[in-house]
């Protein structure tokens, strides 16, 4: 049902730079901010990817011969921190959230445009600060987890800069979260009920709740950690009577939900992409909504499964085993619903769809190893090994990053008004999919057989598998090239996409591509059935509207 009503909320200020300069300015336009997040995140992805490349080169031989050991630890710390805090979290939340959420709720901008711009502009300086710390006395070298007492005893300068930039990025993330909650709850256009919102809104609502509840705990923890480093207090310093396990509890209280902060929005994006390209309604909307909220609630009470081998008492190990395993239920529902969405559709197997289906397959494997890792006895053997490395790369790369690429292929026509080249896109997918699986699937074996993670040197019996893994990493690195080429040449010479190349029903497609500053030239459309594909009556109304 597409009915139009008058615009209902304020217009953003028009005294903004135009042309490409606006992307370098303190813009208040949610679409500009979204693309700022996306491009900025992608630049950091390239940096984080190069660091991953350095790690894979080091690991082609069992000796620590490519770079000094301290540098290796700095590289793996920076790789983890950049990929999590500067690429996946900002892009799946900030980039697509900012671009899409106002369209989905029928608004002309986010609830707090200035706060939004502040949240974005916190990211580049803290990212640069993090990277430059490498050139000043060396970057942090205690891993992205920064477990004390290691983080207290390694050189302080790098660790303090790391803490500062993570605090700033956390602040950015909290501001973004508040903004999304307020936009979705309060800025919804009159007549639009919560249960009529596209699924990505629900995913972002759930994610933002997690952000608001858990990120501040990380901030507090890092403040205490910085006291330990600078003022020589003993919160987490056992030689001064502190307790290192308390840090781990507080850290994982944020950092486990952080995984959901990285994948829930990806779930939302896939739920938008699948129905459009298979021309079918999203299967089981209501159960999808409840499963998102179920993941949010469960996600907050499972953190200690990262600590099964630390000094946690048995009852705690058991409680967290059961709670963690149960996350598989709402997650499983989502996957079955997606397959049911494909079932009986008219599927266009384009790049967006390929990446989304690649995501489903990768994530199922990551989810299965996740349920296995939730079992205390299983985890005791493979904790902190390459099995875990494989598991979480299947979640965050095979999951979130595949979805990011899928979303770029899907929304690129909206961003620019041009189509991406499909053949290059399919080539990109095949390279990425093969490279990714070649890189990470063998690592399950490595972990089970005795290779710990975060090592620069290892038992020579693992050399062959590590080299296979490095070849996979090389393919992944190469796969970026057709993508970049595709984006550049499509922006310059791409086919015009028209306003709605996918013939989609969600609100962002019911305006021109790229959209005008205030999203719709006329009145904002009221979309009550964003997934009404195959519905004859709905299609007729659409025809009439055209």
């Amino acid at each position, binding site marked *: 049902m597409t009915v139009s009503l008058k615009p209902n909320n304020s217009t953003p200020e028009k005294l903004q730079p135009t042309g490409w300069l606006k992307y370098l300015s303190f813009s208040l336009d949610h679409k500009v901010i979204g693309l700022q997040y996306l491009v900025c995140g992608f630049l950091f992805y390239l940096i984080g990817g190069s660091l991953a490349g350095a790690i894979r080169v080091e690991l082609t031989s069992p000796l620590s011969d490519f770079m000094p050991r301290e540098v290796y630890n700095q590289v793996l710390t920076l790789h983890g921190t950049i990929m999590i805090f500067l690429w996946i979290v900002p892009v799946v939340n900030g980039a697509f959230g900012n671009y899409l959420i106002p369209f989905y709720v029928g608004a002309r901008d986010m609830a707090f445009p200035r706060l939004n711009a502040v949240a974005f502009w916190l990211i580049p300086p803290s990212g640069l600060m993090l990277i430059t710390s490498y050139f000043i006395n060396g970057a942090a070298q205690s891993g992205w987890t920064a477990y004390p007492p290691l983080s207290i005893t390694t050189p302080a300068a790098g660790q303090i800069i790391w803490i500062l930039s993570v605090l700033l990025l956390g602040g950015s993330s909290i501001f973004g979260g508040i903004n999304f909650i307020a936009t979705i709850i309060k800025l919804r256009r009159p007549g639009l009920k919560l249960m009529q919102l596209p699924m990505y809104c629900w995913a972002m609502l759930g994610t933002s709740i997690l952000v608001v509840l858990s990120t501040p705990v990380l*901030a507090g923890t890092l403040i205490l950690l910085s*006291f330990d480093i600078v003022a020589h207090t003993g919160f987490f310093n056992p030689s001064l*009577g502190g307790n290192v396990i308390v840090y781990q509890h507080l850290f994982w209280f944020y950092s486990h939900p952080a995984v959901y902060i990285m994948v829930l929005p990806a779930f939302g994006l896939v739920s938008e992409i699948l129905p459009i390209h298979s021309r079918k309604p999203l299967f089981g909307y209501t159960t999808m909504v409840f499963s998102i909220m179920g993941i949010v609630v469960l996600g907050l009470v499972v953190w200690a499964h990262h600590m099964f081998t630390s000094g946690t008492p048995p009852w705690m190990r058991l409680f967290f085993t059961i709670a963690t395993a149960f996350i598989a239920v709402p997650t499983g529902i989502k996957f079955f619903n997606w397959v049911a969405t494909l079932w009986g559709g008219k599927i266009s197997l384009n790049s967006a769809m390929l990446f989304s289906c690649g995501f489903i397959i990768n994530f199922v494997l990551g989810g299965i190893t996740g349920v296995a890792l939730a079992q205390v006895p299983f985890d005791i053997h493979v904790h902190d090994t390459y099995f875990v490395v494989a598991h979480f790369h299947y979640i965050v790369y095979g999951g979130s990053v595949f979805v990011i690429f899928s979303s770029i292929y899907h929304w690129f026509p909206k961003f620019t008004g041009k189509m991406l080249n499909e053949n290059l896109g399919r080539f990109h997918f095949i390279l990425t999919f093969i490279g990714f699986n070649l890189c990470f699937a063998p690592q399950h074996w490595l972990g089970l057989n005795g290779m710990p993670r975060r090592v620069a040197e290892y038992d020579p019996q693992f050399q062959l598998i590590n080299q296979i893994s490095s070849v996979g990493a090389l393919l992944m690195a190469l796969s970026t090239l057709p993508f970049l080429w595709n984006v550049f040449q499509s922006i310059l010479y791409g086919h015009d996409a028209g306003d709605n190349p996918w013939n989609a029903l969600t609100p962002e497609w019911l305006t021109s591509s790229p959209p005008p500053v205030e999203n719709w030239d006329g009145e904002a459309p009221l979309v009550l059935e964003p997934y009404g594909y195959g519905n004859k009556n709905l299609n007729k109304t659409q025809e009439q509207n055209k």
Partner: protein
Amino acid sequence: MTSIVPQEKSSESKKNLSEGEHEDFRLFGLIAFLIADGMTFAGFFAAYLTFKAVNPLAPDAIYELELPLPTLNTILLLVSSFTFHRAGKFLEKEEAKQCQKWLLITGALGVAFLISQMFEYFTLPFGLTDNLFASTFYALTGFHGLHVTLGSIMIMIIWWQTRVPNGRVNKENLFPFEAVELYWHFVDGIWVVLFIILYLL
């Protein structure tokens, strides 16, 4: 970090209020922020309680905190919440002089709290790095004190802005006042929890 949000909100306020729509989502945003801020305190409290439960101090390191001063502090803050509320009542009645008077009293109570807290710091027999309890004590009260300091500054700004005829905060533009008031009640509430956990337990 704390100061950015309320200021951001207040700069938003001008624009949106002139449209006369969605008045309350700024307050909604503030509440979300205060929940986040509260979670930081929750983390500190959880750390403190865990330390206390699993890392007991040696008997000779245990120091019983004196109660009179913190009790006075609690009363100061509770009264200041009340006086702030009273100032709000006068603002709604458009009695700016009365409102400003009560705001000034609130601000003075906040400053008195800070002075009293400082005094307690100087009279305590332990320093920041003495032991786990001392460190956590200073971290918790210090972080709260930072909130009170920011609150007091914001109260003074509001006090200046409620002046007649040139002030910007009045019955038509109530949001900055409401925001600071909500924040102040929040800081007050945190103190009560802190007082119970740190001094009474």
